[in-house]
């Protein structure tokens, strides 16, 4: 069955930790799509002062100035991880191929990554808004279910 873990900021793996002093540099470095100046941000965050930092390519976004001063709030603090076992590697790859191409509706707020290891499809979400995270996960599960029903009804996969 599915193994799901919800971690509020304390996930494992590269780039997943978001709180604490350690996280600050990485958080500043990763930021969101609107924050290209990684080094500048990390310095500002490390300085611990809430002041606007001028960036080389500042892309204004809704609440842009507010985001500059509330460095912690706009990063993706919420995470969700899902591991879906499949009967074979090929089927896991097929599921990944079907579910990965469509972009998230709220790209700036929620991102997800799909990877296949062995015959397991692993999906990791990071989101700043728990409501959008929930919507994204539920939609994903609906489509995952559809993919599985399709594979059951029209599979097994033709051998390559």
């Amino acid at each position, binding site marked *: 069955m599915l193994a799901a873990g919800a971690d509020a900021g304390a996930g494992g793996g590269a780039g997943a930790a978001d709180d604490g002093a350690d996280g600050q540099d990485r958080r500043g470095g990763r930021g969101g799509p609107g924050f290209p100046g990684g080094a500048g941000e990390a310095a500002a965050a490390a300085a611990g002062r809430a002041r606007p930092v001028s960036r080389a390519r500042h892309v204004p976004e809704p609440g842009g100035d507010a985001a500059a001063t509330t460095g912690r709030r706009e990063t993706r603090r919420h995470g969700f991880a899902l591991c879906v076992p499949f009967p074979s590697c090929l089927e896991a790859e*097929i599921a990944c191929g*079907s579910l990965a*191409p*469509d972009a998230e*509706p709220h790209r700036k707020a929620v991102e997800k990554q799909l990877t296949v290891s062995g015959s397991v499809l692993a999906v990791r979400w990071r989101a700043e808004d728990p409501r959008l995270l929930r919507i994204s996960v539920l939609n994903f599960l*609906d489509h995952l279910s*559809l993919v599985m029903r399709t594979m059951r009804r029209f599979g097994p*996969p033709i051998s*390559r």
Partner: protein
Amino acid sequence: MPAQRPWQLGGQILEGALLGRRDDGGGAGAGVRALEPFGARPGARFCLAPGVLSLPARSGIRGPARPGGSQPCRRFLSVSAMPAVLGFEGSANKIGVGVVRDGAVLANPRRTYVTPPGTGFLPGDTARHHRAVILDLLQEALTEAGLTSQDIDCIAYTKGPGMGAPLVSVAVVARTVAQLWNKPLLGVNHCIGHIEMGRLITGATSPTVLYVSGGNTQVIAYSEHRYRIFGETIDIAVGNCLDRFARVLKISNDPSPGYNIEQMAKRGKKLVELPYTVKGMDVSFSGILSFIEDVAQRMLATGECTPEDLCFSLQETVFAMLVEITERAMAHCGSQEALIVGGVGCNLRLQEMMETMCQERGARLFATDERFCIDNGAMIAQAGWEMFRAGHRTPLSDSGITQRYRTDEVEVTWRD
């Protein structure tokens, strides 16, 4: 079901097959099988029973000749030379799966998600409906076509434009079967699907296309490898205007709000004056919609007019606008053919008005029946068939759906 008009094709050859059927079963299997006893004229896509309008024989219009393409007997014998394409469509509230092989529609089942009167269809609910029926539809299509998964050469699906969640639900299935059966995938532009099916069914050579539906309103003409948009709505689609007006009057959405407005309009007696908003080559409908929503409240309360009068007035106004911008494009292009595609194209009053305009210009009008006007899977399969033969492929990584997809974004390499 009203009688078919002379310029409507794709229906004349079927005896009674269309009468009374408004939806759910855009199947054309019977139509295709009926052709065989009469034999296929070289290059002709359809052969008509004696006594019915004949189509000009068309050869070489589709581009380079393919092996055996002009030999009538071989067309029906050699299966492997003829690619069979499976097409998935679900960008709005209709979901269809179609199979096309070498210009013949082998299957075209469809389902419509109908909401209660006074409501429209929302993306999440529509997607849920599509997910519930799509696998059954796929099975139906294969069975009706008499094909197995291995007989299919390519999987086509609607890449866009349309509503996000329904598009994803359908694309996900298309990608899955393409991988399961190890077949190439093709993302098709929905508007181009309509155009290619219109061309196939009617035999029009290079028409000015009026594409009118709930989601799109465009006047399109082909030029140098693009379907160029000559005029379009600057806000909402004409079908959207009609659908939202239907909600105000709580007109039933079964089989479609537009169909019911059309029936009511026939009983209208009084023309209520509405804003007429043609802007050069373009049109605008949102102003008319707000005006008529307002007028409806007032006039129905005072009994100044009936709902039928309002339906009649709305149709007369918006259709006249569409005829005007189509005529303008035809004048620019010096075109002698007009083709109506899209769900609103089923409307016989619109067809009548377009025919009047065409006759005045000495042009020919082409239209299809509800099987192919309304969103269906076979149109995606047909466009996919053209693209597949021209060498287009959509790698999985590029196969994401897109809600905005302009008709002129696609390079039409399959036409000269």
